[in-house]
């Protein structure tokens, strides 16, 4: 990585991913205006307001090469927004993102798979979508096919495949590169148990060569196994950054507390409802005796 032309700013070059004060803003109100008619109607009625919603607020994340990071948080905390910012799909409203290396993302495997094409054609199409060139795919074709275990179905259209087969195809294409950064979603629902093991092995193999990992998960057991660092997001803000072990424990106690609270709330509700039921019963009894 000795780039002669780079500015000798070692501190900057050290980070493979540098997320700097990133804020991502959505507009809640105009998101449902999507045609001209509505636009003009709202314009005349003066209802074209801007309702701000910050999916991420001043998020900082500095990742060094070879580290394994977990992104944890409840639903809607901004985990996938952060991943989208890192993989260039979403431009931040404020702040900057620097990524020094190739990214392979194992989220939504096979987003580019066309069900009408055959497996063979899809390997090329999907590969090109991920940024490989044709020569590279040619050279890795056998490897992809072998890993996906789809040798016998190469020339049949993917729409006839089971969902497991489709994601196997997607996984095999996505992991044939040796990326600098690997982004993995917890729910790797690829095929059967055996294939999932194979995927785990493949990922661990990639990590053993010094690939940087970004792992999104709710499962703290998996996080402890795979990661040494963690970032905890809550409502778009960074709650904790640091060692995976500590944050996992904290997160677990927090989640347990929330669950406990929820259980208590439900129990309380149930008690109230039971009381009500009891009262109604009493009333009915009374009215019945009155009639007699």
């Amino acid at each position, binding site marked *: 990585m000795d780039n002669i032309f780079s500015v000798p700013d070692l501190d900057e070059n050290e980070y493979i991913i540098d997320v700097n004060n990133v804020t991502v803003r959505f507009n809640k109100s105009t998101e449902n205006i*999507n045609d001209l008619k509505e*636009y003009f109607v709202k314009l005349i009625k003066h209802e074209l307001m801007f309702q701000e919603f910050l999916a991420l607020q001043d998020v900082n994340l500095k990742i060094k090469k070879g580290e394994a990071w977990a992104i944890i948080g409840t639903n809607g905390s901004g985990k996938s927004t952060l991943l989208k910012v890192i993989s*260039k*799909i979403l431009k931040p409203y404020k702040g900057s993102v620097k990524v*020094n290396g190739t990214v392979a993302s194992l989220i939504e495997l096979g987003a*580019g798979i066309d069900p009408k094409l055959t497996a063979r054609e899809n390997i090329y199409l999907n590969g090109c979508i991920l940024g490989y060139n044709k020569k590279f795919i040619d050279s890795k074709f056998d490897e992809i096919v072998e890993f996906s275990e789809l040798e016998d179905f190469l020339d049949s259209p993917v729409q006839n495949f089971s969902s497991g087969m489709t994601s196997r195809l997607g996984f095999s294409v996505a992991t044939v590169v*040796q990326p*600098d950064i690997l982004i993995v979603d917890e729910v790797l629902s690829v095929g059967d148990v055996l294939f999932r093991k194979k995927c785990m092995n493949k990922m661990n193999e990639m990590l053993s060569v010094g690939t940087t990992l970004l792992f999104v998960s709710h499962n703290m057991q998996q996080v402890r196994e795979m990661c040494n660092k963690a970032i905890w997001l809550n409502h778009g803000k960074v709650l904790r950054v640091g060692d995976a072990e500590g944050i996992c424990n904290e997160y677990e106690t927090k989640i347990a507390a929330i669950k406990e609270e929820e259980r208590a709330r439900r129990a309380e509700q149930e008690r109230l409802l039971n009381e009500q039921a009891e009262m109604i019963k009493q009333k009915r009894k009374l009215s019945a005796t009155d009639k007699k």
Partner: protein
Amino acid sequence: MSSTSKSISPKEGSFWEVFKFKDLLYQLVSRDIKLKYRRSFLGYVWSVLNPLLIMTIMAIVFSFLFQRNLPLFALYLLAGRTVFEFVNGAVGKALYAITDNATLLKKTYVSKFMFPLSKITSTLVDFVFNLGALVIVMLVFSFVEGRCLFSFWNLGIVIPILQAYIFALGLGFFLAQLHVFFRDIGYIYNAFVTMWLYCSAIFYDIGMFYEKAEQQINAGGTPYAKYMAFIIENLNPLYIYIKQFRYFVWVPGIESVPYWSVVNVWDFVLGAIYAVLMFIVGTYFFKRSQDKFILYI
């Protein structure tokens, strides 16, 4: 350690980035073509038969309608319609290119220019296939007239088609980005296409306007027809491409005139200017709004 290629690469988000994804362009175009013609020989036959049928109907209807008949009217018609269908089909498909690929754009980073570009390019390939109909009609006329209508001069169609392709790219980019924000653009465009069709001199001769203008002048009125002709001839790029296209396939078929005598160089200059202008406008707006796509698809 994997090499991070730091060669002269186009800026992220610019149109030229598509060259980085040129293998993807090939894959997307070949997908469209394959899906259209796969597993049916009739797929291709239809794409030739369809324009022929429409041409026959139009030729019959309009030769009854107009007194002043053009020589080789069917060829005149088909030439105009082929170019019109190319631009119209390309832009019509490009319009939906971004919104149709929403799932993909939400999941991976690909140059967004790629999707309208691939649609327009696959329509270009389709267009080349559709030329079969033109060849058939020219062949038939060659027999009827007893002389060969084919010559190397015909190959000049590359020039108008290249201009039309660049023009369609510009318009396609512009409308594709607009369609992300305003989903009713498709309807508006369809209405616009109908007007465009009538303003492109596909089934009539522009000379009719001048005759009408003469009548208007003789009657002591304002020659509105002449203004109309001026608008079509100078402000409708599509007509300019159709006219150029006819220089190369229809004009050599008319016996009375040597074909280079009618060619007006100005048409080529004007056509090229429109193409480049539209391309610049289209890419400018597309580039400006592409970062917001993800919020609306």
